């Protein structure tokens, strides 16, 4: 996020895109609703009528996969009416002509035709976002889980720059991160192309610095992303995998393909707290320590680094850190049994973004990075005076339609996401009786018109299938989903919706198109 959570309540206009925050990020959802009640203007862009959309001043109910046309259309209205921020564009950005070229075709008529959003709503939303004193964009996986996910993010950045709605309290472009420490895993260099602190692995000077710090020559061949690893297992070039606390057999798209890939490994080592469909394939599974048994730090969506403290000793006798250290030592690269505080000191010494932090300091206060020195108060807001690259670069984007749209054979569009009492693959929440009771099995949201056409009643058993697989589900009839689309949560290992989803990915981020594939629903 460019701005902290508390800033949402300093916003005059909130534009929420592809985020069901009251379900997936409750503390953000609470702030959005509180701001709305106190007089803030709420715009929600989402194909579904979520709780937030119900409360919104304007619901932009776009056709799935038409984000770039929608926001290009809004930008054209803003520019045509002179609501853009000329001074910000002049002093803080470059490549503005490319933006003008990209938005030129998106007249209100063309935008309405592509997105299905009525023109008067487009005008009202464009004006509210552009002319409010402080407007904030909040987005989530509804934006990124498309084959054009990176474009969808960049078009939001274009919109924020066009209106100068960034770098001040109550503004910004704010992605909500789905997991407790997904921000931290990226910050720590849990990525093939980056060392800790986003230092580029393809830069020989960076590799040399880490080789010196770690006393070990560094590899120069580029690494593989997770889905590329699955491909490499299929091809036979990858022979072994270590999987720490992930469940790709349920969480990844086209799950049958993932299961086959992992089955081909000569050696699969899993470290997890529970048996999962992924650990079932492992040759060796080591018991993990849960968060309650771990000492260290998590980094939230605000880049806020917070202390995680051990309440119980590790159930199986060893912390995750100690397991990694002992395995490393046995592999011939000795890692001493350093404490998490000492490991964190090593991280901060090698990561300029975190240099001013330590467990001791974080015991007194949480800090948002960048925090370059011991006296720095941290930086809840980014881009106040300049962008990371200097001037903000307008992208100017063209529409890329979804890879697999409904057709005669598979006539419905499947959208996937989360339910309110379950979380991701359900490994944890499904073992909490109160949460499981709320949502014990897969229910597929379906519009009344579609249900009627298929002769399905509320609660009916049905078979949901795509070109890649099928699951059993019950039908939940609701007009919260648009006609022609169905929505299914991904939590249920016995009915894994990712058997159906497409592995089509964004070419840059490699994020799969979880939000759109073609399915059919049959009565059973």
């Amino acid at each position: 996020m460019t701005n902290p959570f508390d800033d949402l309540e300093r916003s005059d206009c909130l534009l929420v895109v592809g985020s069901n925050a009251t379900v997936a990020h409750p503390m953000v959802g609470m702030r959005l609703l509180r701001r709305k009640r106190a007089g803030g203007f709420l715009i929600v862009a989402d194909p579904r009528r979520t709780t937030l959309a119900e409360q919104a001043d304007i619901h932009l109910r776009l056709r799935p996969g038409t984000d770039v046309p929608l926001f290009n259309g809004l930008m054209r209205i803003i520019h045509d009416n002179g609501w853009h921020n000329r001074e910000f564009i002049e002093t803080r950005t470059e490549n503005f002509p490319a933006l003008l070229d990209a938005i030129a075709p998106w007249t209100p008529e063309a935008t309405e035709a592509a997105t299905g959003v009525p023109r008067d709503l487009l005008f009202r939303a464009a004006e509210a976002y552009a002319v409010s004193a402080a407007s904030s964009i909040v987005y989530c996986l509804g934006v990124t889980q498309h084959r054009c996910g990176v474009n969808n993010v960049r078009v939001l950045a274009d919109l924020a720059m066009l209106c100068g709605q960034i770098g001040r309290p109550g503004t910004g472009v704010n992605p909500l991160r789905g997991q407790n420490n997904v921000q931290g895993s990226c910050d720590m260099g849990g990525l093939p192309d980056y060392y800790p602190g986003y230092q580029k692995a393809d830069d020989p000077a960076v590799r040399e610095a880490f080789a010196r710090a770690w006393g070990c020559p560094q590899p120069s061949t580029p690494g593989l992303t997770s889905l590329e690893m699955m491909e490499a297992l299929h091809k036979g070039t990858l022979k072994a995998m270590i999987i720490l606390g992930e469940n790709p057999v349920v969480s990844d798209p086209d799950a049958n393909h993932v299961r086959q890939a992992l089955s081909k490994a000569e050696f699969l080592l899993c470290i997890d707290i529970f048996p999962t469909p992924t650990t079932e394939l492992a040759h060796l599974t080591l018991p993990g320590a849960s968060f309650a048994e771990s000492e260290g730090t998590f980094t939230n969506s605000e880049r806020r680094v917070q202390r995680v403290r051990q309440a119980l000793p590790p159930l199986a006798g060893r912390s995750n850190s100690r397991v990694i250290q002992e395995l490393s030592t046995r592999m011939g690269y000795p890692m001493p049994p350093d404490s998490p505080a000492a490991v964190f000191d090593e991280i901060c010494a090698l990561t300029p973004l975190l240099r001013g932090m330590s467990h001791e300091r974080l015991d007194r206060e949480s800090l948002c990075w960048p925090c370059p020195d011991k006296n720095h108060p941290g930086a809840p807001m980014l881009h106040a005076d300049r962008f990371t690259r200097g001037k903000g670069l307008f992208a100017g984007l063209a529409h890329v339609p979804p890879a697999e749209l409904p057709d005669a054979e598979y006539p419905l569009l499947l959208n996937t996401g989360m339910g309110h009492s379950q979380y991701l693959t359900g490994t944890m929440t499904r073992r909490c009786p109160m949460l499981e009771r709320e949502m014990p099995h897969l229910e597929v949201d379906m519009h009344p018109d579609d249900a009627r056409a298929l002769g399905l009643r509320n609660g009916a058993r049905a078979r949901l299938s795509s070109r890649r697989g099928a699951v059993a589900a019950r039908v939940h009839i609701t007009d919260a989903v648009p006609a022609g689309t169905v929505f299914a949560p991904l939590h249920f290992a016995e009915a894994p919706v990712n058997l159906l989803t497409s592995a089509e990915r964004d070419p840059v981020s490699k994020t799969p198109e979880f939000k759109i594939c073609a399915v059919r629903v049959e009565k059973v």
Partner: protein
Amino acid sequence: MDIRHTPTVCPYCGCGCGLTLETAEGRVLRAIPTADAPVNRGRLCVKGWNVHDFVQHPDRLTRPLLREDRETRPLDWESALDLAARELHRIRDAYGPDSIGILTSARCTNEENYLLQKFARCAVGTHNIDHCARL
């Protein structure tokens, strides 16, 4: 009964709510919101309130497990770590370091993530390290 309170951070979404675990005699009695935590200021969602139920669920894995053919048998830690190191060594020697891939975890701490990417880049010698951020 000696009751301890440990302020920590919720393990679910990216909000990062402060929650306090109340423990006694090796068990979590309950999770309560941390009153002065900056994100949640004394509130929690339904998932956070119920977090203790999974921590001490009887399904938790407690011993290393080796799968041979269709049998699974428990191992002690030393044998399990020896076996893992031996297999990884063998595969690296036979096919090179880039024949090994590692998925680290967005559920684990910064310190654990740092150690595992360091393990990939030093102990194995590959940049094949990723996690679920792109999902």
